[in-house]
Every structure is written in C-alpha cells, then in structure tokens.
C-alpha cells in the first residue's frame, strides 16, 4: 500500500514536471534542418515572441540563455566549451574587453543590409571603431526612480539617494560598476574613477548607501517598486518605464551629475559554429518591424532610428523609455579599468554587501 501511494505520487510529480518543462524549449514547431542558434542575452531584454517569429521565418532552432551582468556573461562564456554560444549582447566596455581578448568574430556586412536602419550617431562607437565586431541594439541609463507617494524628498541627483531619510528604502542594480560609479559621481568624481585617494572616499561614501539599500537586483528591479517593498533607487531606465505603467506615482529622474549610461550590442563569438545563422539573426533584429516588437515589450533607448520613428509619441515622448538627449549628452559610460583598480572596486563591493 505504502509503495503504491509513493509510486502514484512520484509519477504525478513527474507528469507535472514534464508539462512545465516544455515552456522554454518551444520545440516541435520549427524544423531543425536549418541548424541552430545559441543566444546568450540579458534577462528581460528579448521577448520570446520575437524569437518564435525568427524560428518560424527561418526554420532555425534558437536556444536562449540569460545573464544579469556583463561580468557574469564573461565568466560563463569562458567556462563553457568554445562555441557554446553564437551571439552575445555585451555592453559598451565589455565589447572592448571581448575584442581585446580576441573572443569575437568580424562581421560580414554583405549579409547585414538592415544595418542601414541604425542611426548614424549610433554607428562607429568608440569601443568598436568602424563596427567591425558589433551592431548596436538597445541602451539606456542607470536612472533614478522615485515613488512620489512614498518619498517626500525632492530627489534630483545621485547624491540625494544617500540621504539618511531614505534608510532601508532603496533598490539598486546588482552591478558593482554601476553602483560604485554612481557613488563616485555623487562625490563629483568620474564614473570610472581610478585615483586611490578618491576611491577611499568613495568607499566611505558607500557605507552611507549601505544603510539605504535593502535590495540589489539587476534582473527585475521594477518588481520591488511595484510591490511597494522599495520606494526609490537606481535601476535600468526601461525598468522605470515598466514600473510607471503599473504604479502612476513612480517617476524617472536623470541625475544632475550626469547619469551612468550603457549601450548593448550584438556580437558573434570567435568560435561560433553557426556564423551564418548568427548574421541572419542580426539582420532580422535590425528589421524595424521586429525591433518595434522588442521595444513594445522592453522600451529601452534604441539605436534603430527607423523603428523608433514608427513607435510614435507614446514611446518617444516618455523620458523613461526614450531618455532625453541632454541626459544622454551629460552621461558617461563605463570603461575598462586596470586590474589593480578593479581589485579595489571588488573590495569595496564586498564591503558594501557583507
């Protein structure tokens, strides 16, 4: 009797498992004749519907894995066998680092006619002159988010987030370059500060932030704002936009010091076994129609100016979705640091999170 109950329960649970298991693989529909494509992308950055559309159009089977920081991505790519991923979506400074480590393959622009939809100002970035290895996708800022129902204070700068009145109320990105960069900015220093004396000050300043931050989250920082667990913070600009749609009292603010900016790019790994499929994907994602589908779900700043033109006022008029040009002009990007400075950054991060 005992055994029969057990057997029944085991088979029930297995059945339940096998049902839930189908979701991610979305197998069956597309034929596998056209080969595969392995995409490694940020969480909440690529809608499933767009991936399915590509599979339907091309017959290529796509596997999507996700990461939540550039460093996590790099560590994972290095620990996997060569060619485990075809496409990555690194941010600006990480593109430069991947190029420096000879981990990327040059792009064949013959196969990328849709590159013409990319705005001129987004082409030829400093981290990849001439777009030899990368095409720009989406970007944004580490913007300040405030729920005005819960915070009385008038917040205009990163420095305001260190105010003692915000104790235990903030959510910030779980990203050491973003948080340390923001703190340097709050002190009037560079986002990529390297001066050891100034960094000591930054380290002390971080201890003030420690009291205010209750949650470090890069995956879906909007959730804590929507649920009401956090009242303010520094999160991806498009996450603010998504939170604003749920809770009207949530606002986006671009700091007076100049915001931390990022821009993410599609690149092909050096050992990619599916180079042609990867380029097909790149061309597909630069098609304005497809990019619009992405923007409808994840409204980030977009390099595809033709897609942006079709999005209408609802997108381009919203400062959280389409950051104003003066905020972009004032902001700065993360740059690669020497390893001695990175060690200091890592120590500061440990102190903050211990």
């Amino acid at each position, binding site marked *: 009797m*005992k055994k029969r*109950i057990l057997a029944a*329960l085991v088979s029930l*649970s297995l059945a339940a498992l096998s049902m839930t298991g189908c979701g991610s693989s979305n197998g069956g529909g597309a034929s596998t004749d056209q080969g595969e494509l392995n995409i490694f992308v940020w969480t909440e950055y690529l809608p499933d519907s767009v991936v399915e559309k590509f599979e339907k159009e091309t017959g290529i089977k796509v596997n999507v894995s996700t990461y939540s*920081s550039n*460093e*996590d991505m*790099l*560590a*994972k790519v*290095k*620990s996997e066998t060569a060619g485990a991923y075809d496409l990555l979506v690194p941010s600006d400074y990480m593109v430069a*680092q991947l190029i*420096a*480590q000879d981990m990327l393959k040059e792009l064949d622009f013959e196969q990328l006619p849709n590159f013409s939809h990319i705005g001129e100002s987004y082409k030829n970035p400093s981290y990849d002159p001439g777009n030899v290895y990368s095409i720009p996708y989406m970007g944004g800022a580490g913007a300040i988010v405030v729920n005005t129902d819960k915070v009385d204070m008038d917040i205009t700068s990163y420095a305001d987030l260190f105010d003692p009145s915000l104790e*235990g109320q903030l959510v910030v990105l*779980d*990203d*050491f370059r973003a948080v340390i960069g923001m703190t340097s900015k709050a002190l009037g220093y560079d986002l990529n500060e390297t001066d050891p004396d100034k960094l000591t000050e930054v380290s002390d300043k971080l201890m003030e932030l*420690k009291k205010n*931050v*209750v*949650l*470090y*989250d890069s995956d879906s920082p909007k959730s*804590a704002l929507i*649920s*009401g*667990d956090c009242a303010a913070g520094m999160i991806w600009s498009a996450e603010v936009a998504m939170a604003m749609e749920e809770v009207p009292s949530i606002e986006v603010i671009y700091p007076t010091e100049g915001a931390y900016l990022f821009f993410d790019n599609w690149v092909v790994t050096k050992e990619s076994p599916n180079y042609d499929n990867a380029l097909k994907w790149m061309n597909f994602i630069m098609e304005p129609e497809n990019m619009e589908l992405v923007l409808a779900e994840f409204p980030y700043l977009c390099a595809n100016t033709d897609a942006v033109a079709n999005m209408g006022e609802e997108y381009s008029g919203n400062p959280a979705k389409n950051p104003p040009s003066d905020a972009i002009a004032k902001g700065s990007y993360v740059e690669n640091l*020497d*390893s001695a400075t*990175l060690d200091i950054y*890592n*120590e500061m*991060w*440990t*102190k903050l*999170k*211990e």
Partner: protein
Amino acid sequence: MKKISKHEFKSNTMPAIVTVGPVALLLLLLVLAPLIFVTVMSFCQTDEFYNVVYRFTSVNYSKLFSPDYIKIYGQSLLIAFITTLICVLIGYPFSYVIARTKSKKRQLFYMLVIIPFWTNSLIRIYGWRTFLGSSGWLNKLLMSMGVAVEPIELLYKTGTTVLGMVYCFIPFMVLPLYTAIEKLDASLLEASSDLGARPVKTLFEVILPLTSSGIFSGCIMVFIPCLGYFFVSNILGGGNTDMIGNLIERQFKSANNWPLGAALSIILIVVTLILVKIYQKLGGDMDSLGV
C-alpha cells in the same frame, strides 16, 4: 559426507576490480579530480583579463584573512547556527509526533514534509518573496484582520534569510530525527514512568539520549549545506548580508577571480571536514548522514 564444491577464484584481484572498479572510477573522476583541480587553482594567479594563469602564488590564501572576509565567515556561521537551532526546535517535536502516531496520518504527515521538496527550492524561495512582500498575502491578511495598519516590512532582512534557510532545510532535519525516534522502544518509556520518572525527566534522560544520533546527523545535514547556500540570502535577504556562499559565487561570476574563489572553497571544505570529524568524535554514525 559429501563434500560441497565451491567455486574459488585463483586470485582476488579480478573480482575486486570488477566489483569496486566502476564506483572507484566514478569517485576518482567526479570527486577526487575536481578537488585536485580546485586545490591547484587556489594557488594560481590571474592575468590582466582575470584569466587563470598556472603560475604559483599563495596570495589567494593570504587574502582569506582580510577583516571583511572574516566578518562574512562569522556571519555565515551565525546564520547557519541559528538555522540549525530553529530546525531542531521545530523538527524534533514534529518528528516525534509523526513517528509515534499509530494512525494512517503518519504517512500523510511524512508526505507533507517530502512533497514540497520535489519543487525546485529556487522557485519556492521566490514564492516566499511574493508571499512576504508589502503587497503580499501575509500583509493583506494582517491588514484585513486589523493587526497592522500599514504593510509590515518583512523582506530583505537577515531574519528573512534565516526563515528561508529553515524552510529549505527542515526536511534534512526531520528525516534523520524521524528514523531515530521511530527506532525508540516504547517499553523503555513505560519502564521509565513505572520507575517513577516524570515526563520531563523521561524526555531528558531517556528520549533525548537515545535519539541523539538523529539530532547529530540532522544538525550536520542542515549546518553544512547552509554555509554554502547563496541564493536564499540573495533573494530573501536582498543581497545585503553576504554569506560565504555568496562570496564564492561572486569570485566565479562578477569578480571573475577564480583562484580566489577556489581558495575560499577550500576553506569551506576544511570547515566541513572539521565539523564531520567532530561529529564522528562525538560518536556520530557516518551511515546516518547517507555517506
């Protein structure tokens, strides 16, 4: 008398290789080799891109004694200790009740502990986050009952981490306790009360000593994995009270310093070995740990 013929091997080597060989090979490949790899890596350096370079250094080990890290070890030990204590306090009465019930409910109670275990713990921990949040069910209930006026902040505290840990590890405590208590001979309890012992005295002088092996192995099975868990403190603790598991995770991910991560892992392994050794010294049975 007729002699019974028995097959005998000419040498003992072949049978030994055939029977023990596969398991030994598996252990060599899956336990010993990675362990050696981790040890070697913990003495390696990194280049400017944080790639591992196989050149000897002991700098990773000297870093282990920085005050920040020591604070994190202390914190981890404390959290693991409190978790274990709470698990015993909740798990013991529970196991006692289910092990001593004669009715069919025993099976049901037992299953109540086991079934949640079949769902991935990560998902269950996210469930707790939703449940405990400001707009979660618990706060809604408390407010509708008039207990609270405003949502109580329950998430992202060290206490929440402990709650999640207790929730994750309680089956590891209940199962060995259940086994130990089930073996307890009821006649001993009768004898104790016949000889005039009050229930409290019976508990401390008969029941607890006789089930101590279960308590021991339960504690070891909760305490050790607790030290290495990192996602509970990330999700329920908000990521602001690091444990040694978080520290190790970070070296292999965002900090990209694998040799330091390897050295930290070695520390964790050494602590584990010391604990198991103490357990053995105190008379613990290795079999009841499932090893």
